[in-house]
């Protein structure tokens, strides 16, 4: 009876995968057709055909550019970004045993933006790879600071969030210092806009970096799904169950930092996705990471595509920073989780 729900239930898995693909395709189709310039669905599909398969269908070059180079790349980037951040959140919540853990709240995003801004302003090169590498160094540094502060404060799981808040402030201050002292007025304006999260500048080149990182990160996390489950009762309990705690922590923290860093370097800091999606996904599929992580990937992707559409249509003639839209949903969700976490153990 019970192993039907926990065994390798292939029809259910394939069904869930198929539904996810349909939902993603639908969301991307919506994202590609909705926008300032009204483009009918059939034109959009033709433009996609031209872009993907070089069909040579009659579409005006402007529409072709808007659909394929602007909206499609943007939608795909939103999907990768949302999925990666949601997985990062799920991993951090499991390893740190704190329901409020996620890259943004722990200051990992702030660290990544400091690293990226340092590369951008100090001019190591405007290439995405340079930005990503800078962001990765920054996010690892932020992670190290959080770990140091938290272990210095006794290592309890509630200390981690306090350490994250402090780390966030520290790296935001560092970013502000770099921007105000070294950047030109124009650079400063650009950086500030990018910091709030923005899919506007996304091009195909960014996807060549974000796609492998998102999927490699997802793969690494999936390989550790059982180990993550074993952390439910803490690190000692996981170790007693045969998990190589230190190795798993290092590998997964680095994977999280890498995914966060690459997304931040392309999109800017986007908060709350990593917080809200894992909790919603747990509610739907349960706490087992073998199901939770794929659910986070798909859920995060859908959420972010939706948030991006909203950011474009909420205020006419204007695009809201994506971080603003996610925070509009995330802050109330944060409050709900905080309220529920009050429950005495």
């Amino acid at each position: 009876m019970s192993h039907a729900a926990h065994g390798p239930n292939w029809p259910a898995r394939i069904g869930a995968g198929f539904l996810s693909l349909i939902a993603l395709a639908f969301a991307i189709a919506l994202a590609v057709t909705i926008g300032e310039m009204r483009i009918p669905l059939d034109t959009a599909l033709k433009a996609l055909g031209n872009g993907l398969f070089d069909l040579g269908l009659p579409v005006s070059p402007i529409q072709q550019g808007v659909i394929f180079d602007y909206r499609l790349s943007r939608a795909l980037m939103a999907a990768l970004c949302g999925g990666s951040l949601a997985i990062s959140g799920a991993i951090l919540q499991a390893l740190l045993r704190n329901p409020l853990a996620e890259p943004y709240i722990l200051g990992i995003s702030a660290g990544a933006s400091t690293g990226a801004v340092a590369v951008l302003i100090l001019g190591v090169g405007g290439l995405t790879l340079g930005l990503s590498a800078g962001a990765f160094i920054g996010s690892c540094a932020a992670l190290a600071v959080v770990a140091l502060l938290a272990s210095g404060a006794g290592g309890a799981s509630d200390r981690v969030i306090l350490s994250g808040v402090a780390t966030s402030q520290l790296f935001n201050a560092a970013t502000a210092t770099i921007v105000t002292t070294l950047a030109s007025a124009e650079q400063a304006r650009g950086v500030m806009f990018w910091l709030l999260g923005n899919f506007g500048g996304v091009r195909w080149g960014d996807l060549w970096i974000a796609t492998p990182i998102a999927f490699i990160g997802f793969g690494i996390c999936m390989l550790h799904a059982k180990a993550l489950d074993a952390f439910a009762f803490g690190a000692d309990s996981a170790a007693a169950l045969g998990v190589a705690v230190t190795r798993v922590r290092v590998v997964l923290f680095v994977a999280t930092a890498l995914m966060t860093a690459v997304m931040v370097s392309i999109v800017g800091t986007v908060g709350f996705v990593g917080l809200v999606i894992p909790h919603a996904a747990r509610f739907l599929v349960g706490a087992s990471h073998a199901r939770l992580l794929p659910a986070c990937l798909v859920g995060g992707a859908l959420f972010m595509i939706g948030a991006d559409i909203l950011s474009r249509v909420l205020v006419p003639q204007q695009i809201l920073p994506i971080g603003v839209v996610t925070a509009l949903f995330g802050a109330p969700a944060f409050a709900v989780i905080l309220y529920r976490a009050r429950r005495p153990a």
Partner: protein
Amino acid sequence: MTLAARDLRWGVAGRMIVDGVTLNAAPGRILGLIGPNGSGKSSLLRLLCRLRNVAGGVVTLDGRDIAAVPRRELARRLAFVEQQATTEVQLSVCDVVRLGRTPHRAALASWSEADEAAVDQALARVGLQHRHDQLWHTLSGGERQRVHIARALAQEPSELILDEPTNHLDIQHQLAILTLIRKLGITCIVALHDLNLAALFCDEIALMQEGRLLAAGAPEEVLTEETIRSVFGVAVAIRPGVSGRRHIEYLIDVPPFAVVPAASSAA
């Protein structure tokens, strides 16, 4: 012989917590670990299952140094029940017991019939089959402890280490847990606070004080009026109980040591 420790040393910040402990667990028997708060019982248990790395000495499992045994292999042999471990994650009873199968499953292996059988059997042994789908946070303290023991049993260990499994439980549940442990028939090392329970349930007792092992042996050898007075600082009278085991009665009106009466020092 199964689990043995030789001259174990471990400390934090320059203070020795476990200081030269040598210990042997007899196969299939229950070894009780007693001692005052802070005497190093929990630390010793953590060293025995390699949750901490020894600073000196060696822990062996069938003569093999456990530092050289891969952690997963070790977890298939040796299970550990922590004191009062809990979680915020929404898990059912069987989810928790399933965690015990972690060391038996490869990273991408799916759930097998053998895994399911081990979980069912473990739940049956602690008498919680009917609570299979109940949520962890709705369980009482005694039930949680039994689930933890079932989780440990699902590891199919030949050695089980328990850190004060009766803590914070009422007397009925304390007895139930220890009776359960007695019936397992595997080698157990269990830290206990209650001296009478230790005398009642353990085959052998090891007594710790300030990180050192003061005595080890049969309960009647270790639990004497003199040792209890000197280690725990309480006066006791020990006589055979109804069960044939020793019964320790605490004497509250007798000063444990020949102290100078307060009245005379005031004068």
